Every structure is written in C-alpha cells, then in structure tokens.
C-alpha cells in the first residue's frame, strides 16, 4: 500500500487534466493515475518521412489496430467502432482540435423538443467555465458567429486557404451559414506554445505544439502546482469501505505489480467507455451491479456522434495536403426543424483534404484509383483536388446502447474489457441522410464534378458520452448536478459519461468546462463535500 492521498484522479486526458489543475489551488495531495505514457512531440508522425504511414499504425485511432501495450481491446462488431487514445493528454493527443461549444438549447432537449432529457444545468452555468477552459487551452476563432451566444476567441481564426475558399463559394451560393471554426489550435504564439505552421497533420499529434493537448496545456501547470501524475498505472477497480465510501483503487503499475492506492476522494476521468468499465469492474457484495449503479444506468445511454463524411473532387488545384484539417463550420441545420424528418441537428465540420498517401489509400479503397497504366493520370486528378466535410450528428440517449463487461476479452493486465452494444437509431439515420444530401448540394454548388460519401463512418466512434449521466433524480441518473455520485459521496465523475444528451458538436470543450465546473463545486463545498 502506498501513502494515502486526498484526491485520486483516474485518467490524464481532457477532463482529468482540467480537474487536476483546478483543484491544485486547494493544496490537497492530488494524484492522477494514467494507464498510458507521456507523449514526445518530437516523435510525432509529422516529424518523420513516414508521417502518413504511422497514422495507419501506431497512431491509428482504433485501439485494436494501434494495439500499444497501454491500450485495451474493445469489441468492434457494431455499426460504429470505438476510437480513443490512451496517454497523458488522452483523446486530445489524437483529435483535430475542432472546438465548438454546446448551444443553450442543447441543455433543454426535453423542454424544447420533447425527446431525451434536460440537463440539470444550463449554458449560463457553464459559460464561465467555458471561458476559463478557453484561456487554458487557447482558442482561435472569430467573434460574431450568429449561431452562438457572444463569446470571444483569443486568437485569430485559421486561414481558409484554397480549400476553405472553395467550400465557402458553395455555401454563399446557397445562402447557408458558415463561420471560421473555433479551434484549440494557436494561430499566434500562445503561453509558450508555437503558432500553427500548417503541418497538415493535426489529428496525429502536433509536433509544433500549436494544437492544445492537455499534456502541454493543463498538465505542466498542474504539476508545477504540486499535482502528482503517475503513468503506466492501469486501474482495475475502485474499492469501498464499510461505510460504502470509496477507499481507493487497485491498479497495476508499470511493472505489472498490483497495488492499492488509498484516497479520500476518487474522481473518474476516463471516458464514457473507460469510466463505465471501471465502475462495472468495481462490483462488490455491497454494490453487486457495479459501483454507483443503484439506478442501473451505469454503462447505459452510450452516445456517439454518428458521422458522415462527404467529399467532392474539383478541377482546380486545392491545398488539402497542407494547412490544418479544420477551417470552417456550418450550423445551418443545427437547431430542430421537424419538417426535415428528424429532431435535433448536426454541424458540418469542413475538412481540407489529404496528404499523398492518404489520398492514394482512400481513393483505391473506394474504387476511384485504378491499378495499372492509368494509375498515375487518375491519381493526379484526385490528389490536391478533393475537399469536403464531416457531419457531426446528434445521437439521442437510448438505454439499449451500452457498455457492459466482455465475458471473454481482457486487457494485458487481465482486466475484463468493455463490451459495446450499439444500434444506430432511425432519427440518427434520417439525420445522416439529410446531411449527405445537403453536403452534396454544397459541394456541387462549389463546383465539384464528383461527390462521394460514407454515412455513418464505421470507425467514427470518436466521441463517447452518456454512460453515467448527471441529474437530480437518483433513480434516473448516476451523478448529481455537480458530478458527485448519488450512491458514493466521495466519488465524482468529470468525463463525457456524465453528458445527458450529446448535442451535435465535438464534445471536448464541454467535457473540460464540466470538469472545471465540478472542480469548482468541490472547492466551494469542501467542508460539506460528503453531506
């Protein structure tokens, strides 16, 4: 047994870093256990000649394909498959940095649209934490977007470039909304991070450090403030004492040795799959259905964002192989309009294009690039001639979409792996169809001579939400309105699993704002935290 700590955080990703940094000012002894490694930006793919090959291998977003010894396996027999990254920074290492906020309406889904549930908090409650997180991560964008309540990104937006300008041509022709995306990418030097130099390889780790991953934003500040971070520590379960309070965790250290770490407070900051897995693996005589699970909802209501990708090919030469992946978004179809045949909506996240290898691999996979003598002529009409977008569709919570424990599959430490059961809803299907049709209109209006789409993207389970939802009713939620377990009063959850609904935007900014909000509540309630 190691010395007890005041606060033990499980996971050093988007939310774990934020909560650690915020709580550091209390001067409590805070320890974070992370199953992965520290990343070395100098070794990111874009620093080598094999930069695209590594995206298909050791930086693949599928844990099963990547198969690092710090990853855990997940069944991949659903229509959407899990994407994640395990390491200091978590999913922020392996994301594009697209950084939208929720809309105010996203917190009132039941009241406004009669589906799912309202959140127990609202946009105004989270707004100061959005702002605080924006300062820590560094957000670029342009104020004045009519799709959002006023807010001020602190750095100028990413450039449109040729690809963005081409897409804008179509959007303006149709009279549809677009705006420079808010991104967690520094466009000027920011807090010791270099500005974006257009490596064109944002997702697979930013060697320049322009993209805000928490290993280079929150963690240096948290560690300077006294937080301890131990890597290669894989938590098996949260233990409880005779009073039904969390007493610590059992984990495997870097040498595979089983250890017990006692703690006064435990904070889960995995993701909606990892957190549910640990809670279910923490079943005991007192908590036979898993920890914090008197509602029976741990693992249920798993939400992704079903993604469509829609691309067009143009006669003109574009710049898809350079520049950040993102440039603009459109929320023309974000708010509910029942005449479209579905409730809720989606965001278009426009995406410049691809590098030379990805252009070849993808074009061949979809049958556009031939073998044989015509290969070179066709390739030169594809490479640097493609641009398009992703549609991020709001998934509604459904209890049959869930995380359980796999009866067979285990990780390298022998811990039962998560098992995903997921079925795409009819509402999401119709939304995807609508998005593909509208995106095709945009691309044609912009001048595309050929359009291709995939919906949903099978490997697009990037955004994991909902498996330990927040709420005021212990029978209908896992944590209360400030992130504390209803059942175990020194257990908190701060990751995407506490989402009540998914919205139609990338979730990281909201996950981090929620983590700061929960941390703020912990700090303000220290003397009555367990009441």
């Amino acid at each position, binding site marked *: 047994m190691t010395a007890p700590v005041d606060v033990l955080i499980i996971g050093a990703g988007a939310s774990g870093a934020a909560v650690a940094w915020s709580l550091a000012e209390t001067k409590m002894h805070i320890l974070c256990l992370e199953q992965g490694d520290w990343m070395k930006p100098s070794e990111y793919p*874009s*620093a*080598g*000649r*094999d*930069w*695209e*090959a590594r995206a*298909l*291998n050791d930086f693949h977003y599928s844990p099963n394909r990547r*198969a690092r010894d710090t990853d855990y396996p997940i069944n991949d027999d659903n229509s959407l498959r899990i994407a994640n990254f395990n390491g200091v920074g978590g999913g922020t290492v392996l994301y594009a940095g697209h950084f939208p906020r929720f*809309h*105010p*309406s996203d*917190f*009132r889904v039941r*009241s*406004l649209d009669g589906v799912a549930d309202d959140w127990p908090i609202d946009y105004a409650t989270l707004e100061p934490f959005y702002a605080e997180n924006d300062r820590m991560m560094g957000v670029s964008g*342009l104020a*004045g977007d*009519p*799709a959002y*309540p006023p807010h001020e990104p602190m750095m100028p*937006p990413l*450039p*449109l*470039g*040729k690809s*963005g*300008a081409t897409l*804008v041509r179509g959007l*303006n022709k149709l*009279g549809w*909304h*677009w*705006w420079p995306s808010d991104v967690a990418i520094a466009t000027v030097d920011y807090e010791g991070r270099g500005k974006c*130099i*257009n*490596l064109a390889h944002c997702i697979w780790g930013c*060697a*320049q450090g322009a993209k805000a991953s928490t290993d280079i934003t929150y963690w240096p500040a948290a560690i300077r403030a006294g937080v301890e971070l131990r890597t290669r520590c894989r938590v098996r379960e949260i233990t409880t004492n005779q009073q039904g309070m969390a007493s610590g965790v059992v984990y495997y250290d870097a040498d595979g040795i089983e250890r017990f770490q006692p703690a006064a407070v435990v904070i889960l900051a995995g993701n909606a799959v990892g957190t549910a897995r640990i809670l279910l693996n923490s079943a005991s005589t007192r908590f036979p259905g898993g920890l914090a699970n008197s509602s029976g909802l741990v693992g249920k209501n798993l939400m992704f964002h079903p993604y469509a990708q829609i691309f067009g090919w143009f006669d003109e030469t574009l*710049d898809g*192989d*350079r*520049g950040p992946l993102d440039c603009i978004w459109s*929320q023309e179809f*974000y*708010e509910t309009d029942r005449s479209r045949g579905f409730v809720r909506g989606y965001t278009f996240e426009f995406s410049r294009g691809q590098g*030379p*290898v990805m252009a*070849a*691999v993808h074009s*061949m996979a979809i049958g556009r690039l031939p*073998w*044989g*003598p015509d*290969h*070179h002529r066709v390739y*030169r009409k594809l*490479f640097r001639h493609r641009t398009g977008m992703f549609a991020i569709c709001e998934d509604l919570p459904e209890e049959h979409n869930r995380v359980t424990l796999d009866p067979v599959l285990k990780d390298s430490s022998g811990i039962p792996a998560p098992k995903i059961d997921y079925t795409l809803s009819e509402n999401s299907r119709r939304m995807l169809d609508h998005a593909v049709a509208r995106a095709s209109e945009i691309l044609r209006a912009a001048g595309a001579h050929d359009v291709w789409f995939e919906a949903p993207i099978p490997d697009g389970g990037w955004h994991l939400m909902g498996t330990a939802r927040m709420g005021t009713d212990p029978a209908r939620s896992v944590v209360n309105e400030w992130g504390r377990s209803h059942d175990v009063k020194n257990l908190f959850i701060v990751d995407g699993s506490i989402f009540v609904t998914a919205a139609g935007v990338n979730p990281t900014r909201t996950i981090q704002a929620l983590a700061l909000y929960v941390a703020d509540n912990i700090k303000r309630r220290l003397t009555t935290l367990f009441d």
Partner: protein
Amino acid sequence: MPDSPSALSADQRRSLQSLAETMIPASVEYGVPSAGDKVIFADILRSFGRDAEHVAAVLRMLDSLSGGVFADLAPLRRDAVAAQLREVGGQSLMYLSQIILQCYYRDDRVMRSLDMEVRPPFPKGFEVEQSDWSLLDPVRARPKLYREVP
C-alpha cells in the same frame, strides 16, 4: 509468417515485386518508377510490421490463383490474376495495398513528380493562402440562428 524480408521465399519476393509493379507501373510520361522499383520495393519489404499476416495471406491467394509463381506468368495472364485478386483479396489485400501505397508515395522521386518538397511536414510547415473575410458579409447580415432557452 513473413515478418521480415528473409521470411519470404525467393519466388514470393519476385511475385510480390511483380504484384507491386502491376498495381503501380512505371511511367515515362510522369517520370516516375514503378512500385516494384528496387528502392521502393526494399522499403515495402521493411514495412510489413503488424500486417505481416495479411501479406502472407495475399501471397497464398496469389499462388493459388496463379497455379504457380505469379511473377512467371505471361503479362496478360498476370493482369487477369491481379484482377481476380482484387475481387477476392478482401481485408488482407487492403492492408498490403496500404503498405505498397505508403512506400510508393513517400519515395523522393514520386514526391518530386507531385511538386512536393522531399521532407516531413515538421519543422518547416507549409504556407496557406490567407483569407478574405469579406466573404462572411452575407452571414454577418443574418439574424441569430441559435434558439433562446426559457
């Protein structure tokens, strides 16, 4: 399992090289080598990595479809077998194709033919055209799109 070049028999090597050439032949018009070029093929042989089993599976399929050594077939017969392979190759062929394509399109000569600088993106980065934000004027003129919440 061919987890290293030496694990391939001489015939398998020749067949794999011939398959790479069939996929991407040399082009005088574009001034590029084939994927079976000595330098590129050496890169391919070094790059099986986690997909060695898939490479082995494709080579087995290739032997079976060829009824002998693929590399020794007459050119027309090779093309026919390659077309058959594309029909039945499945996931294993997809992974082998990835290996061939990633090695081909990072070759110096091929990159130069595409007007690319022969270097990784970092640390030099790239230039991207700046923006004309007056394109936003019609959007700025719109009323707010988000819903007020009671």
